[in-house]
């Protein structure tokens, strides 16, 4: 895999309002890259800068080893699928898709051949004479994508393209996008605010928070090795426990917390007496028989979820809460509130956040 695009220390502000701060990332060939952030987090601004619709206040956009900050939109080998599709209402589907080629003065036969090809790829070969306003949302979406694909860009930029669709159609289009990206072998930079969508579609995800990237990585990386407590809570749930190292030796580290003390694997970022926050996913907390390593907690409530249950438990003082997930209902039905249980952490999958 080779890199094709790099953003280096990009910042953007309008007047005194900062939109993006020091954004850096690289895009690989044939990659489905997602920028995930809540609305207003500046995620659209990133692809608008790549597309050339707006300029970064500082930093560099590098494509094929060349700074393209000042390259005009129409010279950049990227195409955008807009959130509102932006199909030309005065042209039918065929002319919309063929527009990019017509502008490049391609011959009529070539345009026709290519357009029909691409329309077949997106499954709209029978719609070439329709006007955009006669199409459903999903179909308009496909036309917008076809219009971008036909220009054979190096990267396709998708600005929340599924935002306007209803849930059912959204699922279909996700599948469609994933398949088509594999088929045409073009890198996609995809913008969304929907976590499930990002996990389902992406090779890599960049999470945008507070004008900065929190973390970039594969969906699995982000889930199992969050770098910050924000990231730990961003995907799914995570118990965050304040801890202090009490015994540091070559094999393992003993820490104390509100729930008592337990051992974690060796970590070079920690030393004796250092304080940190320990993150553990609720499903990585196990019910065990009492042992040396186990921790005693008191059940606060039990939430029945079908074949499994979720338990919220507290420490002895009742001032700290821990969540335990994926308890087989067979076990949980024998438990009741205020029972004492013994738990253990799957410490191989715990995360350490030093503040």
């Amino acid at each position, binding site marked *: 895999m080779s890199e094709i695009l790099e953003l280096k220390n990009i910042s953007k502000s309008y007047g005194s309002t900062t939109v993006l701060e020091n954004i850096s990332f690289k895009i690989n060939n044939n990659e489905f890259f997602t920028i995930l952030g809540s609305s207003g987090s500046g995620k659209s601004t990133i692809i608008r800068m790549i*597309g050339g619709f707006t300029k970064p206040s500082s930093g560099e956009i590098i494509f094929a080893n060349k700074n393209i900050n000042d390259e005009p939109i129409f010279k950049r080998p990227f*195409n*955008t699928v*807009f959130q509102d599709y*932006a*199909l*030309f*209402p005065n042209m039918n589907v065929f002319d919309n898709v063929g527009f990019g080629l017509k*502008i490049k003065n391609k011959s009529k036969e070539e345009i026709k051949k290519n357009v029909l090809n691409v329309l077949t790829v997106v499954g709209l070969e029978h719609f070439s004479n329709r006007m955009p306003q006669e199409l459903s949302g999903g179909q308009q979406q496909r036309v917008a994508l076809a219009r971008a694909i036909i220009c054979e860009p190096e990267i396709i930029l998708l600005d929340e393209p599924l935002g306007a669709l209803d849930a059912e159609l959204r699922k279909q289009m996700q599948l469609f996008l994933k398949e088509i990206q594999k088929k045409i072998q073009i890198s996609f930079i995809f913008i969304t605010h929907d976590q499930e969508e990002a996990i389902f579609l992406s090779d890599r995800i960049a999470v945008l928070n507070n004008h900065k990237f929190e973390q970039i990585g594969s969906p699995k990386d982000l889930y199992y090795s969050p770098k910050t407590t924000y990231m730990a809570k961003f995907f799914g749930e995570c118990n965050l426990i304040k801890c202090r190292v009490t015994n540091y030796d070559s094999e393992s580290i003993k820490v104390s917390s509100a729930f008592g003390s337990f051992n974690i694997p060796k970590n070079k970022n920690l030393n004796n007496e250092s304080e940190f926050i320990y993150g553990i996913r609720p499903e990585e907390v196990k019910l065990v028989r009492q042992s040396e390593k186990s921790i005693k907690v008191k059940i606060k409530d039990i939430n029945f979820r079908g074949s499994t249950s979720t338990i919220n438990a507290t420490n002895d003082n009742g001032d700290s809460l821990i969540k335990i997930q994926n308890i087989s209902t067979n076990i949980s039905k024998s438990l009741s509130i205020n029972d004492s249980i013994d738990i253990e952490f799957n410490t191989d999958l715990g995360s350490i956040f030093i503040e």
Partner: protein
Amino acid sequence: MTRLENYTKYLLAGLTGLIVAALYAPIVLTIFYSFYKSRKGKVDWNSFSYEPYTKLIYERQILESLMNSIYVGVVTVICSVIIGFYFANYYHTSKSKMKEFLQFIIFLPFLLPPIITGLSLLIFFREINLPRSLNTVVIGHTIFVLAIVFKIILNKLETLKPSLMESAYDLGASKWQAFYYVLLPNIKLSLIIAGLLAFTISLDETLITLFLIGNDTTWPIKLWAKMRVGFSKQVNASVTLILILTSLLVLLIASIISRSEKKIMY
């Protein structure tokens, strides 16, 4: 519906009917007198004739004034639509505070009494030694209709999504290609409506024209001059023809508007 409301409804319908009648009475009379003669206020019912219409081609003065009016109208349309488009585009895309000021100035000739616009231009032309002619009338008409043309085009521009032009550039279009293939086809109707309206207004403009006209005459000015001696049947005939033309223009504008509104707004 209560009984009271029913009465109100019929009362209002009657009033509306009366008002429509009052507005059309002068027009209907004109058409009537182009076919029938009247002597000392008595209508001669046997005098029906469409001769005035055929005789109209010998009325050089009337025809000439009509041609002048059409010339002024056409040039006014061209100037006002071009300038109006550029202003609308400027207003739509610019962030500068000057644009509000610009809009205010454009609206002045439309809001102020026509007599003010007329005499301002008259004085200005005298100061710069520009002799009065049909072209000075064109200038007067252009700035008078500019506000309407500007507003119509601006309204249309504001309905277009910014992503529309952006996607044209994104697909590789230069600014002229984006203008020609994307912007122009999408605002075409508003340009046509604005132009037709400008023409219709110019055709009948009298108050500003009176100040700016030179030795030529436009059609309303000709009528104004003829009025002192009373109208011949040929004048009535020419009026009837222009009335038909104007009504057709207004109907055309209305049908374009209603058709474009029926289209699903995309």
